[in-house]
């Protein structure tokens, strides 16, 4: 379906990442946002609060992040695309209802503009230390999807992709920006509405009475019914059967939770996305994401001047992780170098997938700034030996 033009600010703009993300949400058809102010994400909702009244959207600043996420899940059940925006401390608070969204299979987007942590950390400065939390933050087994932009343009484009993925797979999608990309101002080109492809909420064709909220008819993803359309469905955070009724048994847990995982796992090839460059014949491959991808490029060029054959895999969809490609590459190269603004998160995934066939070398940074490209270059040079 084409995007609704009332939300699309067509044209070439000079926007920061936060604003671009807000524009992406509006272009994707998001019409409900509940949020709580937290640096460095607040500009997203500030932009939305200013534009929503002109396009039939509703924004509410809730009393805390717990309420914000609960409201987003509630709103999504009316068929409205919903989003919330936060940073690390709020992300931690939202985990409870992210789990609810995962269990109830509610499409929604959670934007985390990462900052230095843990706890209150560095409120106004960059970090990338929530990456594992995006995958494992809520309790229990579930498979979220997470994306990571490296520029304001990507903050716009990938937000639309985030909504599309959440609609297609009925999972909460984590949009993992960082403070640098969020507060960086660059040119953002927003196309015409009919050049933007959005996935609408897939409603059931079954009649009330025949409808099973979590019946899948052999597909991975159940069909949706909106509250207020007469389906009188029930949904719960408890382990439930196809009718949405609680069924507290090991058998139901196995069947229901496994399907929650399988609906993403079975479609990994369609979901995974990364930019790959110069990995053919490379000795070292960088694995990067977010702002670090741009810094690492400079480090990579410096290493190439020294004759090192280095390629790069830039993660766009971070979760599910591109296990297959990393496993393939591990057989051909000496080492992966993983610079990230944390003390080792995505490097653990690289190491796991490399399974000892190639080294996985972390170039950490505690946060509060970006890497010195020289550090990355040195790590590449060492790895190539």
């Amino acid at each position: 379906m084409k995007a609704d033009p009332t939300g699309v600010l067509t044209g070439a703009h000079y926007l920061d990442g936060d604003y671009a993300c807000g524009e992406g949400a509006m272009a994707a058809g998001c019409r409900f946002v509940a949020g709580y102010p937290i640096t460095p994400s607040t500009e997203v909702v500030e932009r939305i609060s200013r534009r929503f009244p002109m396009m039939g959207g509703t924004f509410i600043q809730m009393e805390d992040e717990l309420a914000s996420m609960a409201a987003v899940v509630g709103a999504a059940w009316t068929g409205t695309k919903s989003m919330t925006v936060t940073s690390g401390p709020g992300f931690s608070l939202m985990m409870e209802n992210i789990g609810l969204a995962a269990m109830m299979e509610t499409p929604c987007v959670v934007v985390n503009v990462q900052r230095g942590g843990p706890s209150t950390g560095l409120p106004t400065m960059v970090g990338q230390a929530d990456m594992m939390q995006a995958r494992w933050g809520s309790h229990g087994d579930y498979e979220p999807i997470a994306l990571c932009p490296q520029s304001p343009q990507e903050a716009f484009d990938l937000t639309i992709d985030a909504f599309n993925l959440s609609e297609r797979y009925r999972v909460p999608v984590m949009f993992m920006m960082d403070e640098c990309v969020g507060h960086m101002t660059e040119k953002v080109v927003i196309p015409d509405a009919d050049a933007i492809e959005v996935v609408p909420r897939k409603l059931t064709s079954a009649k009330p009475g025949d409808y099973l909220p979590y019946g899948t008819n052999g597909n991975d993803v159940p069909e949706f019914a909106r509250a207020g359309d007469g389906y009188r469905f029930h949904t719960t955070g408890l382990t439930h059967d196809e009718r949405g009724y609680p069924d507290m048994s090991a058998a139901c847990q196995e069947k229901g939770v496994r399907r929650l995982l399988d609906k993403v796992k079975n479609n990994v090839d369609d979901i995974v996305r990364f930019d790959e460059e110069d990995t053919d014949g490379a000795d070292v491959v960088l694995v990067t994401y977010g702002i670090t991808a741009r810094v690492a490029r400079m480090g990579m060029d410096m290493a190439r001047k020294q004759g090192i054959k280095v390629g790069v895999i830039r993660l766009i969809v971070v979760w599910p992780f591109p296990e297959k490609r990393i496993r393939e590459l591990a057989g051909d190269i000496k080492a992966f170098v993983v610079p990230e603004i944390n003390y080792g998160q995505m490097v653990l995934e690289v190491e796991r997938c490399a399974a000892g066939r190639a080294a996985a070398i972390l170039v950490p940074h505690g946060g509060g700034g970006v890497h010195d490209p020289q550090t990355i270059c040195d790590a590449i040079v060492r790895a190539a030996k």
Partner: protein
Amino acid sequence: MSTVIETTEQLADRHPIAPYLRMDRMPHIWCPTCGIGTVVRCYAKALEESGVDLDKASIVSGIGCTGRVAGYMKLDAFHTTHGRAIPFATGLKLARPELLVTVFSGDGDLSGIGGNHFIHAARRNMDLLVILVNNFIYGMTGGQNAPTTPLTARSSTMPFGNFERPFSLPHLAASCGATYVARWTSLHIRRMTKSFKEAIGRKGFRFVEVIAPCSTLYARLNKLGTGFDLMRFYHDNAEIRHGADTRDVDIGFQDKIVCGKFIDEERPTFLEAMHEHYTKILGDRYVPMPPEGGWIHE
């Protein structure tokens, strides 16, 4: 005399509540002499008598014994996380304004973990009907102290008696800005039904507290007999005082219970205030979300 043979299910399906209940999930899990079932019956009756379109009625519950209500009612029903029924309901209501949203949950869920959401929704005069069943305890998890447990009452986490001052929920709701505040006990079936029906017809943050017996935990831990004995207690000790000042309706342990309708006002709801304000400031540029909601389709 003719004899008609029916199965339990057939007979149960002729109960007047059957159209409003998920009969395939009966019998429910509530204990003998628990008051929640009675409150649900009265709510179903009020829904029926009010004539609202039940397809547009949604019910949201939290966690706890009363939290199971959503699972049993044949409406669009949401069994959400502990304490978050009110913000969930807020999202539902704001994203599809034509819905009639009821929050049906317990005292621990709505005034304990959900306390913050309760006061803000009341402050904003969010258009929600909140039915709070108060059994003075956290029943589902085994009888722990609740924000409403009366002084000196025993619970599993206050084994020597409660020394914490409890909330007076009507006072809390009223002081935060609720526009309809009432309290009944589960014995007051007629007045409770009438109160629900009245509240269904109103707008804004409507709050009805229903004191109900908890036999297995509250009554047992405090050696008060069963829920039946608690019902007898309500019979002898409930005082109806409409319009009472909510500062005077505290409940002491085995003390009088002041019931009645305390507040019945009209004030712009959140959505009404929003519409009015944006229309005034933005004029023609304002595009409100339609009552059918923010769902965009072809």
